């Protein structure tokens, strides 16, 4: 029972990361119809920027986190402006290729600047708490709480602010939104900023627990894609539920199915589901 609860706890923690990262991706995919293959790499860069601000510049964890998030928002805006906006009117396949280009660029950028070997951000809260027989480090708890705060904040932003409402309007009907005079380019830019910033939050929360490496974005990015495709493109609840679900399945399944092949099952399931329903479980259309 205690082992089970421990696994549930870990699953929720991983799920928190998945949920945040998938959230950022679903926003971009829903609004711009662009599959940002580099989204996992934005997450990776967020982690390294935390390292840069918190450790290299010595700003400390929280100031570093804030700086990393701001910096990533800017990175997201630059990416939208330079890479994706010029491809708006071109065949979709060109946007995928540009996304692969950004992914290669970001990964080797991290490799060149910080090296291929892993880096560690010192854990600011290494204390352990024992709760109902489950040991949890404060930092792990922080990941979970941070994710909840972020999700609630984003929900508030989308529902209660004008900026959030315009994003939703564009997501639902791009042409219609254009007709009502919404500046779609500005919305795109803002969405990319939010998407990259949330990825940075996820990376900042979890990097004191795991090593940073340039390759860490690739698999996470793919998992985020799986969540988004299954949860429905542009669907925020889909991304959140899907994220936590995948975290739990992995944590609980890790003991029963081979750890080596764990990702094979997740990816294989996606292939089969899309073979049966090519537009995703809750998919409305196509990209």
């Amino acid at each position, binding site marked *: 029972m205690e082992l089970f609860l421990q696994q549930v706890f870990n699953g929720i923690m991983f799920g928190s990361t998945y949920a945040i990262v998938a959230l950022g991706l679903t926003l971009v995919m829903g609004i711009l119809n662009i599959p940002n293959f580099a989204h996992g790499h934005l997450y990776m860069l967020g982690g390294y920027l935390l390292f840069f601000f918190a450790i290299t510049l010595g700003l400390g964890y929280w100031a570093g986190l804030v700086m990393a998030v701001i910096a990533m928002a800017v990175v997201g805006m630059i990416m939208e402006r330079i890479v994706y906006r010029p491809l708006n009117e071109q*065949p979709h396949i060109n946007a995928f290729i540009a996304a692969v280009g950004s992914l*290669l660029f970001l990964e080797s950028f991290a490799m060149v600047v910080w090296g291929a070997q892993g880096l560690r951000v010192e854990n600011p809260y290494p204390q352990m708490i024992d709760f109902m027989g489950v040991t949890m480090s404060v930092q792990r708890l922080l990941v979970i709480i941070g994710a909840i705060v972020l999700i609630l904040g984003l929900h508030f932003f989308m529902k209660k602010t004008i900026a959030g409402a315009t994003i939703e309007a564009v997501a639902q009907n791009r042409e219609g939104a254009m007709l009502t005079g919404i500046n779609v380019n500005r919305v795109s830019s803002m969405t990319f900023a939010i998407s990259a910033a949330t990825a940075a939050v996820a990376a900042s929360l979890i990097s004191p627990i795991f090593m940073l490496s340039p390759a860490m974005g690739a698999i996470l990015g*793919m998992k985020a894609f799986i969540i988004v*495709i299954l949860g429905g493109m542009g669907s925020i609840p889909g991304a959140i539920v899907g994220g936590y679900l995948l975290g739990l399945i992995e944590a609980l399944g890790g003991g029963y199915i081979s750890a*080596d092949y764990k990702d094979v099952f997740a990816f294989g399931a996606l292939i089969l589901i*899309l073979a049966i329903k090519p537009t995703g479980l809750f998919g409305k259309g196509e990209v």
Partner: protein
Amino acid sequence: MFTKPIHTKLLYIVIFVAALLLPWYVPDAYIFQVVITSVIFGIAASGMNLILGYTGQATLAHGAFFGIGAYGVAIMTEAGISFWLALPAAALISAAVGLVVGVLTLRTKGAYFAIVTLCFGVIAWIVAGNWIELTGGHNGIYGLGDPTPIPFPFFGPIEFTTQTSMYFLSLAALLVVLFALYRLVYSVFGLSLMAVRNNEPLADAVGINTFATKVISFVAGNFIAGIAGGIYAIMMASVSPSATSYLLTFNFLIFVILGGMATLPGPVFGAFAIPVLMEFLQFLQDYRHLIFGALLIAVIIYFPQGFVGGLRRLNQKIAARRKQKTSES
């Protein structure tokens, strides 16, 4: 109907002769190895071009099918089967897996297809690294023998022990593949591939079975990837999971895009120019993917037709201008 201007034909003849004579002027064994690898990657990239460039399906599993060919040849030759039998068999396995994956995934469109094929690519990579009994795990399979000599009347058997022989083997494969692609692409069949890429609903409305067309293109492209992988394994005399990696897929993608999507010489040009260029720019080695990533973005935005496509467009402009001049005078 599909003729080329005379200077283009001349250029091809010059390149062909230069390629035939290459073993006699290549500076050293290392560069020779780079060139042979380029020939093999050129084959694979041409296969990807059929799917991506001509049919417009953004496959990101090409490295996986290259790997299936490589492992197929490695495993079969280890089991004592002749390379000459193992190579077509491995390519057929690649094609068969391609058929299954294609039928499962080609109903998806655009981004979904790209991500699903990427998933398959990662699965192949994980399996290659973990199915130790079959693939040797992360160490892979090494110490593969040379292909058995082919008995040949008058000249005696052709041996495949030297780099030169390996080069001609790869070159022959490349030429056969290009010839086959040339026939496929410059025909009504090739037009139906481009029809699917260009306007799927209309292709459907004029009576083209678009799904079957995509599957055929995907299977043929992966067959070609399998051939390339098989030759790669015998050339390296070994195979490891990196031969199935998605990084390899991205390399093929770079060759196709920078060389020129939907042109026959483009991917081959890319597969040559880029690695050779990198050899001369050794000091940039660390920045390799940084540069290629940026280049990929710049090219797809500003020159989506790539190097060869750009040249072709220039050619057309010159031809149009000449036509104008003759009609004026």
